[in-house]
């Protein structure tokens, strides 16, 4: 189990390197010059050239990348070109709210998605099944920003039930928790559909398996048959799907944070890209991709925990 985890961790290193390289190259193809941005609209060519030399932008690309990686390995993410604040400091301030949002979204949407999918799979073809599947198709089809806007309009603005702009405090304060509800409902809402559909398919698949028949032949109650012998096995593909969907969730987090003015990494990324703040944008890319890698690693480990056949391999 531990060996499995370590193996996956080592495999994450080249992935991370690839992310850095692609992130770096993407910044190169953007037709904006960081030195010009930094110098401001009124700067003379001399000043721009000086800044370019200062930032190392006159060096060949491979040297720039080498220097970038070298600094990164020393924990130096650079500073914002806009306001000179260290990138690490900005990331440190925004990562907490983003984690809060992610966990709050997954906390309710995954269990609910699995529950709905199990019910739909168990009562396949019934009214329950069709209702749940209709809801989940709607969930898959509705874009995050639209759901967010609808919630803001009705729950936040018209009915004034919940706050909808910004983060009122950390999650352990009442205000903080209240301000988290709408963003978490929005981001989790788009997650229920895929989880429910995948669970339904997996449960259906397992319910027709021989070992489920064995479980029934033992005289187990239907509840135990479903929980222990169908759902437990069905969770393996569901967890895999969740891992794959986390990428979309990160994308959704960027949108959700922007819609709700949530001070997270996603909103920071959008701001940095819009203002051509390259070091900041790169920093957010690194954090988001690291998040993706960590979640996938967790999924891998969970996968092994759920399926003993993988553990030994």
């Amino acid at each position: 189990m531990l060996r499995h985890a370590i193996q996956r961790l080592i495999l994450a290193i080249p992935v991370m390197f690839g992310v850095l390289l692609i992130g770096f190259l993407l910044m190169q193809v953007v037709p904006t010059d960081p030195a010009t941005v930094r110098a401001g609209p009124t700067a003379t060519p001399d000043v721009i050239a000086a800044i370019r030399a200062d930032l190392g932008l006159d060096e060949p690309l491979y040297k720039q990348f080498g220097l970038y990686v070298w600094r990164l390995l020393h924990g130096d993410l650079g500073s914002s070109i806009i306001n000179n604040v260290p990138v690490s400091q900005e990331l440190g301030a925004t990562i907490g709210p983003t984690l809060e949002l992610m966990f709050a979204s997954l906390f309710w949407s995954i269990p609910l998605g699995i529950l709905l999918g199990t019910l739909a799979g168990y009562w396949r073809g019934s009214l329950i099944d069709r209702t749940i599947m209709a809801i989940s198709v709607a969930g898959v089809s509705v874009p995050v920003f639209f759901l967010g806007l609808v919630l803001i309009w009705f729950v936040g603005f018209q009915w004034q039930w919940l706050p909808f702009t910004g983060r009122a405090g950390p999650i352990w304060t009442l205000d903080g928790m209240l301000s988290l509800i709408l963003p978490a409902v929005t981001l989790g809402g788009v997650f229920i559909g895929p989880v429910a559909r995948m669970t339904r398919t997996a449960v259906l698949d397992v319910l027709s398996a021989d070992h489920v028949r064995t479980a029934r032949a033992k005289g187990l109650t239907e509840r135990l048959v479903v929980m222990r012998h169908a759902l437990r096995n069905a969770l393996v593909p569901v967890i895999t799907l969740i891992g794959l969907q986390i990428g979309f969730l990160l994308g959704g987090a960027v949108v959700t944070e922007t819609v709700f003015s949530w001070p997270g990494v996603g909103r920071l990324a959008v701001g940095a890209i819009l203002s051509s703040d390259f070091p900041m944008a790169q920093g957010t890319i690194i954090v988001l991709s690291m998040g993706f890698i960590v979640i996938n690693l967790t999924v891998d480990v969970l996968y092994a925990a759920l399926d003993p056949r993988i553990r030994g391999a």
Partner: protein
Amino acid sequence: MSEDLLRIEGLRTVFRTHGGEVTAVDGVDLSVPRGRTLGIVGESGCGKSVLSLSVMRLVAHPGRIAAGRVLLEGRDLVGLSSAEMRQVRGSQVAMIFQEPMTSLNPVHTVGFQITEAMRAHDPRASAAELRERAIEALNRVRIPSPDRRFDEYPHQLSGGMRQRVMIAMALACRPKLLIADEPTTALDVTVQAQILDLLRDLQAETGMSIILITHDLGVVAEMADEVAVMYAGRVVERAEAGAIFGDPMHPYTLGLLGSVPRLDEERETLLAIDGSVPPPFALPKGCRFHPRCPFAAAECKSDQPPLREVVSGHSAACLRAPVEAFAA
């Protein structure tokens, strides 16, 4: 007969399909005496597995028992509520299946799956007690170092070992009847013999009755006291095992015996029955075997032959029974 542990009377199991209702088991009457083994033989699709699942009331949707009774010690299982039926499953009637590879849950340990069966019928037993009983059960099916196997997962065991685990699990609550649905079909020949030996020994030890479902006449010859031959959802012949093999009366049984390869006779080709089992949605009129029967007469095409006792203790559903051997 008060000696019978199980009596099946007029059992009819149907499946609802798009083309209407299809009858997989059609009016089967059978009985299983205490401590004895009834072999049910037939080709794939003859309804023998559906019959066994009907006894357990485990026929999956869209199948259902449409008529008949399944009397276990006089109590009709068909009329029981699902909660009552659950009490019967595992504790009074247990079942083992064809595929030991897939019949155990891959994500739970062997020990968990055995103790789970025990706990279902004895919720007050302690974990330590259950473990002890499960290890004893593994020991009884001759699994070496059972206390180590207890904590292993099915994928760590061979096919034969898994079938032993299935047997240990089935017998965990000391059922009165064990239904074995093709228990050795998926196993190597040498392992087959071991599993059959084991079943026989366990039967002698516990006095349970066995319904052995198979298409393998060799297995039946070795294990069964009585044999029922099924064709297209019906029992076509029924007798003591010796009588079936020594003096088969139904043309289908004759054909089945003729298609078994033998080492002690020189034959150029195996005698095979022409054609195949008719699908349940396209059964012929009259005797269901008549299109394939070399003895078929005009009346076989119109009249459905009942299962009738031709000589004492030996019944056949054939208007022309007893027929003489093919050579005649």
